[in-house]
């Protein structure tokens, strides 16, 4: 079963962390990725650029309108994700608990099952 583990981050929360704490998060993700690769459960993982760099695209009367900034005005935004293939939802949740963000108040880790997939997987 495929799941998307999305990481919702809050820059204010991250800024308030000490350098050691920030380094620990980096290490934690590194170890997590390594373990997922070894167990054959990782499909892909990506981290996204800052939401200030995002563009919201709409088409009105056939005309594209592009506005800068994120779609949702919020303190938290999507920072990245892990796309995994594992046994069941319980395993996906167990894996999510190994993500360092789960131990930090103000950061969100969400698990959702994938319903449709297409395209080359060797991204």
């Amino acid at each position, binding site marked *: *079963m*495929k799941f998307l583990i999305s990481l919702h981050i809050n820059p204010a929360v991250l800024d308030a962390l000490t350098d050691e704490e920030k380094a620990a998060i980096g290490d934690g993700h590194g170890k997590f990725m390594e373990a997922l*690769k*070894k*167990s*054959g*459960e*990782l*499909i*892909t993982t990506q981290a996204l650029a800052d939401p200030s760099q995002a563009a919201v695209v709409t088409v009105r009367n056939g005309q594209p309108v592009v506005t800068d900034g994120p779609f949702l005005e919020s303190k938290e935004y999507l920072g990245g994700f892990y796309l995994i*293939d*594992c*046994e069941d939802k319980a*395993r996906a949740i167990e894996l999510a608990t190994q993500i360092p963000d789960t131990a930090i108040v103000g950061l969100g880790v969400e698990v959702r*099952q*994938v*319903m*449709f*997939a297409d395209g080359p*997987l*060797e991204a």
Partner: protein
Amino acid sequence: MTETAIEDLLRELTPQVLGALVRRHGQFEGCEDAVQEAVLAATVQWPAEGVPTNPRNWLVTVASRRLIDQMRSDHARRERESATATEVVPQDVPDTDDTLVLLFLCCHPTLTAASQTALTLRAVGGLTTAEIARAFLVPEATMAARISRAKQRIKAAGSSFSLPAGAEREERLRVVLHVLYLIFNEGYTASSGTELHRADLAHEAIRLARMVHAQLPEDGEVTGLLALMLLTDARREARTTAAGDLVPLDEQDRTRWDRALIDEGTELVKTSLAGPALGPYQLQAAIAATHADAVTAEQTDWPQVHALYLILERIAPNPMVTLNRAIALAETAGPPTGLALISMLDSDERMAGHHRLLSVRAHLLEKTGDTAGAYEHYRRAARATASIAERRYLESRAGRLRT
């Protein structure tokens, strides 16, 4: 020989060659890689140069050579790193069909179901890692890591290359059958995505079940599982519309069911039911055979379906079985009786919010004339499923009630 025929031959020979190699050299992991390489070499060479007179020996020879090369380079590396290491090379053994032993090994209880299926498809089914990855829609690297981890685990568990005895054998055989069942289901109903059936996996599961059945013709559950697969696969063509939409059992065009598969499956069910023991696969196959026997949905022998579910519920209690029994009960005793039965499942946390419970309730409410309740439950069921085909079907049922 055509390429397809060569492919079939290679798939058939894979477990035999692997078995021969493991008997000769021990170390399942190394042998498994060597056999894959030999099979790949054959895929390239045989169509061009012709199939050797004794293809099995050809594969054993090529795989052994690969394995010995591998052992030599490992050995050289160890020599550099530390002191000595002597390879124990077991004596040659006579021809034996090791398919069962391999299946028991690949379905080792220390492995997750995902690893068991992957390893079974590769070592016994003779599929390449790339093919397995494609079937499960994951990158090849992901599948390769999963297979390699599985082999390490088997090595760590220190299992011997022999059939387990007594009660353990029974227990392990159940795991093997479950893995074959999972492969079949993965092929028949993809657990997610638009593709409702990935035919190759279903056919592969049937092929493997036939192999096990040939080895254990007296085992009622093996026979039952094979029958269940054949009877289910017989409905494949009728199960979806040309557009890929799901067609429920009672609306399927039964003239499109595969008669040959039904006849074979029904015959197997009869044989297995005549045996001494009765197991879950036999009962599920008997239920499938009862449906197959009805020329129209109206002619279904629901009392018999219900009786079979009742026995199944007794020997293998499971809320999903109770849910299916409720459908049969509704047909024999009326929808309110079926609804009363499923209300007992509400407190079962395995079923809470499950789309099957919601959709069966919707179906039964529809039959009682509670349109609003049925609409609401179809909608909730549609949201709860992770299958696009099922969601589309449930939404269309809800849509019908709205007008």
